[in-house]
């Protein structure tokens, strides 16, 4: 080990927050817990964002590594054992002090603790466990804790840690076993999926125990999440989304996160991405992820072997609707909740409000607007009391052309992004996304109308 000695807290925090920033998950959601009247801390189910960093991402938790010392050699990671970076390690007490003092000043909603692998996976996991134990038992911290499972650590340690944490996660890192073997030779699918399964089973058992005896200690009450790096390896969107769907269905994950690849250590075996990280692709994956979790979509409806990547110009729901015009128009005052969910411009909350509100009044377009429906997208696909909003045609090219005039199809921050300037006709970007002309331009669409 080449840990530096005599480092003060500020220097350690500098190194170990910098090293933790590529982990995406910073959510504090999924668990409602009242305060206990002693110590400090409570938790609310929707989670709370405490700040937004210069990259515009939410800061909810104190996201740090226990140490950036690491015996593994994952190619994409800045902390791999071959890289020449300053190494530091927190003691459990230092982490407790930072967490408690930040929490009482309301800087954070809790702790997100990850780590490089020091000495061995079990040694590292044990330090993580000790830290959590101190926070919960000595400092009576009752706020949110998200902790990483270290691949290859002793299952007994994982289990003990799970009773102290709200959420646990283990990163899948790359969508396929092949890519993982190439870029992270010290990790394998089985050292990642085995602990994931273990925690899943324990959560299920715990739910049963809680039904029998309500005072049973809770095991990972906010569930598990994972993360995949997007754009470092050649997988297409179809492969990535299929993996995500599997994780939701077979491992009951709460969230899958997608992280646009940044080549942090200039590794020549990895893509250089001169146009910046593939943010638009990441955005489309998140949109599709929501369609899986909240809108009852299946990956097979959105993508296929023949159409393996998302349309970059239209969000996945609009894209789906355009290819399924036989489904429309939908009558707002009659359609089922499931049907409403499929309409572009109607979110799951609006759909719920529509179903409740129409019990008393026949809804008009004016009402829909007030309810929160985005009419500029929805108007092509719906009727209110049998009438369309305007005299629009139910025709693919016509609707497509109009939808693409809506600039919000590509979010403003990506369109005008501070760092990455997007040009639709940028060759490099096109190759990043592995798109051909026919995929970029829907049939019948002329370049000039964009």
């Amino acid at each position, binding site marked *: 080990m080449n840990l530096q000695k005599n480092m003060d*807290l*500020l220097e350690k*925090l*500098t190194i170990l*927050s*910098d090293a*933790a*920033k*590529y982990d995406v998950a910073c959510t504090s959601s999924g668990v409602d817990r*009242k*305060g*206990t*009247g*002693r*110590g*400090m801390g*409570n938790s609310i189910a*929707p989670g*709370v*964002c*405490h*700040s*937004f*960093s*210069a*990259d*515009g*991402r939410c800061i909810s938790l*104190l996201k*740090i590594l226990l140490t950036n010392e690491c015996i593994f050699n994952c190619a994409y990671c800045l902390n791999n054992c071959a890289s020449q970076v300053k190494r530091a390690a927190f003691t459990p007490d230092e982490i407790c002090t*930072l967490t408690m*003092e*930040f929490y*009482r*000043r*309301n*800087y954070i*909603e809790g702790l997100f603790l990850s780590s490089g692998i020091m000495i061995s996976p079990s040694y590292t996991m044990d330090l993580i466990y000790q830290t959590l134990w101190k926070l919960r038992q000595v400092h009576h911290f009752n706020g949110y804790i998200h902790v990483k499972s270290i691949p290859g650590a002793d299952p007994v340690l994982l289990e003990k840690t799970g009773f102290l944490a709200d959420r646990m996660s283990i990163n899948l890192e790359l969508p396929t076993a092949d890519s993982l073997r190439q870029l992270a030779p010290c990790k394998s699918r089985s050292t990642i999926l085995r602990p994931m399964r273990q925690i899943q089973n324990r959560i299920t058992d715990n739910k049963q125990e809680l039904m029998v005896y309500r005072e049973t200690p809770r095991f990972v009450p906010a569930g598990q999440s994972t993360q995949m790096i997007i754009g470092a390896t050649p997988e297409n969107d179809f492969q990535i989304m299929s993996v995500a769907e599997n994780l939701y269905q077979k491992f009951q994950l709460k969230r899958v996160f997608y992280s*646009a690849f*940044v080549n942090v250590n200039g590794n020549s075996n990895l893509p250089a991405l001169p146009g*910046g*990280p593939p*943010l638009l692709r990441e955005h489309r994956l998140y949109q599709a992820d929501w369609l899986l979790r909240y809108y009852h979509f299946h990956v097979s409806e959105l993508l296929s072997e023949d159409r393996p990547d998302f349309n970059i110009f239209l969000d996945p729901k609009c894209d789906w609707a355009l290819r399924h015009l036989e489904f429309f128009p939908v009558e707002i005052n009659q359609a089922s909740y499931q049907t409403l969910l499929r309409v572009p411009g109607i979110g799951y909350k609006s759909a719920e*409000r529509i179903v*409740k*509100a129409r*019990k*008393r*009044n*026949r*809804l008009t377009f004016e*009402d829909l607007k*007030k*309810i929160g429906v985005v009419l500029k997208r929805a108007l092509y696909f719906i009727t209110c009391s049998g009438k369309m909003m305007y005299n629009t045609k139910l025709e693919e090219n016509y609707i497509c052309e109009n939808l693409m005039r809506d600039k919000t199809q590509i979010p*403003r*921050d990506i369109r*005008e*992004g*501070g*760092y990455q300037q997007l040009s639709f006709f940028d060759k490099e970007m096109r190759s990043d996304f592995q798109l051909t002309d026919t995929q970029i331009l829907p049939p019948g669409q002329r370049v000039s109308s964009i």
Partner: protein
Amino acid sequence: MYIFLCEDNIDSIFTGIYDAWASRYGHANISLTTCPPDNYTLFSEYITVETDYEKSEKVARTLRARLGEETYTEICQAACALEENHGRKKAMDKADAIYHTIVLALALKDGSKVLNYLGEPYVNRVFHLSRKAGNEAHHLLGFLRFQELENGLLFARIHPKNQVLPFLGEHFSDRLPEENFMIYDASHNQAALHPKGKGFFLTDTQDLNQEMLGRFSPEELEYQKLWCTFFENIAIEARINPKLQNQNILKRFQQDVIEFTRGS
């Protein structure tokens, strides 16, 4: 038309609702407002509401019992919301919307469902007001910053548009039961005070000792520095995007958040 003039606070609005109901003028002939009119309309009778905490409490009790805790909270949030008028068109009066929503709720078999009926203009207005106040309160649960003063008190200053102190006071009393803290709402000159181990209360802040607020505990600046360091380091350089940052934490919140004000 009988028009009840209330002040813009929850107790006055609830008193107005009590008086309007008790007046028996008929709901269709009654209107409530929190804004004194510029021009008094002919043929309307104006009645000034005198805030009465007993009446307000009675209204609150009835709403809780008949509409349930959740709907009651939404109505309170609406009552605490700022009435913003966009453009020339005047939006429906807050107090009037709440009154007529309650009238409808009490006529329903299940009053707790009243906020479902968004096709009703009054209900829609209450829903929007409540959401606005609720959203701001939720943002402040995260954006509020405590500073530890010399005497150990945790002090936070906020400039909210809506009167969100009751919601913040409740949240932080549950979260920090063993702290003495004070949340100062500088827009409405009110504060929520929480003495260690007790419940919180609201108070006026005329005689707030401004000088005391500038004297920090010895460790305070150290933790601020640690936090700001963390804040800078956690951003990914390749994704720097100030537009997105300002979209997510609006400038009006930034003024009270140390990592944005403490130039480093």
